[in-house]
């Protein structure tokens, strides 16, 4: 079967229905095994957690508008920044791209009918709800004040907040992550369509493969660490508390063995999204496909070797610090490979500045700053000055918000027409993308300076001479907040009032664009046979641009 035939046969001119119309009862959603419906339920759930985490962020920025601790008490402030971190990291940043975009797109991109383990996929959602529900319950009961890192011995011995409940929530939620990663690996190994070789897979899939490895290898360790913390807290067995024979630095080793790679669980899927956006909106084959693919694996592997750079001033051995510092510099190499290759892809590309591409370009600039400032913090001497200052906060947010959140937004905008069958307003999309970019920089760039000037993180009060930059930061957070609320409005609006998207509104060659929008429950009416390379815009891909335009015109009409 040649490429053109495969595409024509894989495409339904008159789709029988789609995954959204295949049952409308609550049970049809709650008991579904369709990866697309599960992804939509994740989208709603994760968005709720994102909004809650955002409210805590707004409280932090409002408190820091003035030097005195006048909006909330200092003890409450401890809880506010802790809960901001816990909700954002464990319930938004980690699951967002894999559980929403990965769940929805991975089978479509490799030509599969579903994930390999659909019931496990639904189970992972239920586990996420259970873990999230327990955590929310604990927050409503009074919350937790340990910081999202749960450092011992404060968390085991001194804190009188709801450490056990929140720890249990995170412990349970970890299994959701493990099951999702397991499902992706099995699916990629066993469910690829005929002709979809490893090196024809979209880089989004490679990124999710690497992410899944980290999820499976790292998440059990944090689960065990939190469990040990709970055991010590409940039974006073000496594990981490030095007063009863434990070692608090052991907690940090175990915690960061997972939690540093967790940064890559958050950012690697984002990098996968950016690879798709850069290549497709440049209408050009990605530069150095194999290097980008293997750099994802390299990041996943090297990411496990650098955790000690979070512990330079903890009392860790100086020799261990030197080894971790060196390895931290090494992990910058595969990230740089991606940046250089994306830039080379743009060169002489036919670039269009649609909303997703604005996010992708924004990502490149912001992640560059986030990555390079990471080298400052990885340098064992300089970091003594910068540890626990706002420099760390700024660096982390440049990677996580400037990287992951921007990539997530870019991905949501890019695949929204496929997920819903509707187009959103490009005008408002572009306005929102620019507000997010400007607001983000205004919020977090001043924090580099504040940190370098010595403003510590996790304090509700600060010296008066630091107020101007804090006002900039809070003002920026307002702009960022508006920029983030806007997509929630115009994307929801598009569900009813948006024009029909057509099957391939961007005219891109990926398999996900070769089925109807929204896709049928089985994803493809006929099993696709892949005869073209990834990001192939030439005739070899069988991309029937004229036909697609005709179908879209008919669909819109």
């Amino acid at each position, binding site marked *: 079967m040649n490429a053109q035939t495969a595409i024509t046969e894989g495409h339904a001119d008159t789709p029988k229905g789609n995954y959204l119309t295949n049952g409308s009862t609550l049970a049809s959603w709650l008991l579904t095994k369709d990866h697309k419906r599960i992804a939509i339920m994740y989208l709603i759930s994760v968005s709720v957690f994102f909004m809650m985490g955002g409210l805590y962020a707004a409280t932090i920025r409002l408190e820091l508008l003035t030097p005195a601790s006048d909006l909330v008490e200092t003890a409450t402030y401890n809880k506010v920044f802790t809960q901001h971190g816990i909700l954002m990291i464990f319930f938004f940043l980690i699951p967002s791209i894999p559980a929403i975009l990965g769940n929805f797109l991975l089978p479509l991109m490799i030509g599969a009918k579903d994930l390999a383990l659909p019931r496990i996929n639904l189970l992972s959602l239920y586990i996420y709800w259970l873990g999230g529900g327990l955590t929310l319950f604990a927050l409503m009961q009074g919350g937790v004040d340990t910081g999202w890192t749960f450092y011992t011995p404060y968390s085991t011995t001194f804190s009188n907040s709801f450490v056990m409940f929140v720890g249990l929530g995170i412990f349970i939620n970890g299994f959701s992550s493990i099951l999702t990663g397991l499902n992706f690996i099995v699916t990629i*190994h066993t469910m690829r369509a005929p002709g979809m070789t490893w090196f024809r897979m979209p880089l989004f899939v490679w990124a999710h493969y690497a992410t899944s490895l980290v999820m499976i290898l790292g998440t059990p360790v944090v689960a065990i660490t939190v469990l040990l913390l709970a055991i010590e807290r409940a039974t006073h067995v000496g594990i981490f508390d030095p007063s009863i024979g434990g070692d608090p630095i052991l907690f940090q080793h175990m915690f960061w063995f997972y939690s540093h790679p967790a940064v890559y669980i958050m950012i690697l899927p984002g990098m996968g999204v950016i690879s798709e956006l850069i290549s497709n909106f440049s209408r050009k084959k990605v530069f150095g496909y194999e290097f980008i693919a293997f750099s994802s694996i390299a990041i996943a592997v090297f990411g*496990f*070797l650098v955790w000690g750079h979070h512990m330079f001033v903890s009392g860790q*051995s100086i*020799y*261990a610090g030197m080894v971790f510092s060196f390895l931290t510099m090494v992990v910058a190499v595969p990230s740089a490979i991606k940046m250089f290759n994306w830039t080379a892809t743009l060169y002489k590309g036919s670039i269009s500045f649609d909303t997703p591409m604005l996010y992708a370009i924004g990502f490149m600039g912001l992640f560059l700053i986030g990555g390079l400032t990471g080298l400052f913090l990885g340098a064992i001497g300089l970091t003594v000055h910068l540890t626990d200052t706002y420099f760390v906060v700024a660096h982390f947010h440049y990677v996580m918000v400037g990287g992951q959140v921007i990539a997530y937004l870019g991905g949501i905008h890019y695949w929204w027409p496929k997920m819903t069958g509707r187009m959103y307003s490009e005008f408002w999309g572009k306005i929102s993308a620019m507000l997010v970019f400007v607001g983000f920089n205004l919020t977090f760039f001043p924090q580099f300076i504040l940190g370098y000037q010595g403003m510590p993180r996790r304090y509700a009060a600060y010296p008066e001479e630091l107020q101007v930059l804090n006002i900039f930061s809070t003002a920026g957070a307002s702009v960022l907040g508006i920029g983030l609320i806007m997509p929630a409005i115009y994307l929801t609006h598009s569900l009813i009032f948006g024009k029909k998207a057509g099957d391939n509104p961007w005219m891109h060659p990926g398999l996900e664009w070769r089925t109807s929008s929204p896709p049928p429950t089985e994803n493809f009416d006929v099993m696709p046979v892949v005869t073209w390379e990834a990001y192939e815009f030439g005739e070899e891909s069988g991309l029937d641009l004229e036909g697609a335009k005709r179908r879209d015109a008919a669909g819109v009409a």
Partner: protein
Amino acid sequence: MADTHNEHDHEHMNIPKYIGIFMILVVGTIATYYAATVDMDRFFPGANTLVALLIAFTKMTFVMLFFMHVYWSKRLIWLAAVGSFFWLAIMFAYTMQDYLTRGSGTFSG
């Protein structure tokens, strides 16, 4: 395919063999208890911990090979199992490089 795989496993394992493996695990548990009551640290510091870990490692190997059927699995499964051990070794090794060099050498003061 999956059915064939299960049938293949059943050829190798049966109830008496499962009970045999279980008994090995019980013996290992008892050995762990008694090893903890003997002061082996007089030979070298940490000897008790080392013995406890060796017994635990042996028990874990039996569980993986026979209860989890890795022994009869294809190479990809072996790779996953060995890779997991390698990752565990990374965590142990890099944590121990901290403990074993703490407070010693040029920077000890």
